[in-house]
């Protein structure tokens, strides 16, 4: 039963791949690779030991930038969301910084950190910080006032109120925000690597093209990016299913 569910989407992908393969193969000289060539490219990377190296490099940067952003943005966002004055106060600054693509920070990042890992981590941190902050602020503000009233009614002091009411109440929304932000982090790392560093999947794409028009590697890189991004997303979704976090979804 389960297998049949996958049959049609996989068949669809198969059709797309076939069309792609045929369309390209009709030209003897072609820049855009066929799916077969892409697979060959991936095999090539594995052979040279580059696949693992690049994937690890990208994941490493994502992890650092993302975790740093989570550790700083979530408590700060919860605190700001709790106080209406704080939210009023910080809102303009947040709203102006938010539409600035992390990539626009590249010159500044390179100025401060030079070309390399640190700059990439900084960019990922930037890309994740504000969305997480906003998610945390929003999560606190959407706690039904009733829960806070109940907490106060039972005599909870401020600290207890935070641990026993506020935190459990915001967790579902936070997790959704964490998932979306991880997706953002993955997008930023690829872009950052294309410009600011010398390893990683993003770098692979730029380098493969620049050093010899190896478009099979370029597309191989893209495919890998897509797959790993999807895996990261699925990974966090499985976290959402842990029962004690699930409470808000069963309400739907």
């Amino acid at each position: 039963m389960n297998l049949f569910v996958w049959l049609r989407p996989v068949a669809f992908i198969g059709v797309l791949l076939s069309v792609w393969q045929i369309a390209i193969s009709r030209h003897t000289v072609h820049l855009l690779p066929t799916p077969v060539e892409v697979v060959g490219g991936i095999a090539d990377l594995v052979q040279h030991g580059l696949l693992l190296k690049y994937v690890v490099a990208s994941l490493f940067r994502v992890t650092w930038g993302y975790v740093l952003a989570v550790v700083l943005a979530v408590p700060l966002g919860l605190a700001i969301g709790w106080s209406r004055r704080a939210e009023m106060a910080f809102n303009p600054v947040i709203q102006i910084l938010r539409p600035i693509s992390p990539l626009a920070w590249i010159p500044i990042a390179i100025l401060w950190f030079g070309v390399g890992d640190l700059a990439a981590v900084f960019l990922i941190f930037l890309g994740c910080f504000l969305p997480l902050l906003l998610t945390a602020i929003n999560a606190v503000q959407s706690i039904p006032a009733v829960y806070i009233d109940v907490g106060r009614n039972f005599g909870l002091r401020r600290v207890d109120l935070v641990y026993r009411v506020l935190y459990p109440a915001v967790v579902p929304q936070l997790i959704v925000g964490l998932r979306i932000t991880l997706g953002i982090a993955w997008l930023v790392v690829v872009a950052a690597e294309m410009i600011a560093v010398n390893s990683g999947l993003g770098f692979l794409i730029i380098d493969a093209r620049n050093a010899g028009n190896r478009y099979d590697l370029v597309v191989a890189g893209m495919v890998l990016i897509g797959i790993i991004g999807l895996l990261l997303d699925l990974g966090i979704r499985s976290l959402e299913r842990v029962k004690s976090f699930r409470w808000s979804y069963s309400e739907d």
Partner: protein
Amino acid sequence: MSLMEPFVTPAAVDTKLRVEHVNIVFDRDGKSTPVLNDISLEVGDGEFVCLLGPSGCGKSTLLSTMAGFLSPTSGEIKIDGEAVRGPDPRRIFVFQERGVFPWLTVEGNIGFGLFKLPRAERERRIAYYVKMVGLEGFERTYPPELSGGMKQRLEVARALAVNPDMLFLDEPFGALDSITRLIMRGELLRIWEAERKTVIFVTHDIDEAVQLADRVVVMSARPATIQQIVNIDIPHPRDISSPRYLELRDGIFKQIGLAHKL
């Protein structure tokens, strides 16, 4: 028609809660809306009092103020002689089932206020109240899997577990179907008779008020005043077909100005 003097409780019963000339005015962006107008009331220890009135008349506001969630614009509320300054575990507010915490099990919810007790005592109390409200077998269930009536019972259990002096109930059965409502009223009376807390209960349902309360405080529309306080002198269990019941109920109907025939 507002009551000139507060109803005097018989000398044998201590006054638990006293409302003295409370006015509440809401100020929103410059517009003042008076909600409660010169409310004075006394409630005796162990009494079951209903605040009855049409929706939006301010009775929930009065209840919230009594429980300490709101401050009166003028006037004072005293419980056991002390002025009310904020919410307190000695007087628990029972919200409609939406007050139940969805991230805690039934046990977790009931034990919520018991954090000061040693573990053994806590577990004993939780088990006791689970049984009292009839939720045995559901101890480890999460609220989203419970029915409306069960969630309501869970809230009552959670409130009772901390052994408060007073319970405030704000239309607790409003979201339930009428059959469940009848059952829940019986349950509530059963629990009240066992524990004899002072209960203040808000409702817009006349029958509910006459079935449950020792006294019914009939309130007018906004800005609310106390129109009348009716003493329900029928002992429990009340026969809802008895002439005295119907007489009292019709009296309130008439007071509110409702027609008898539909």
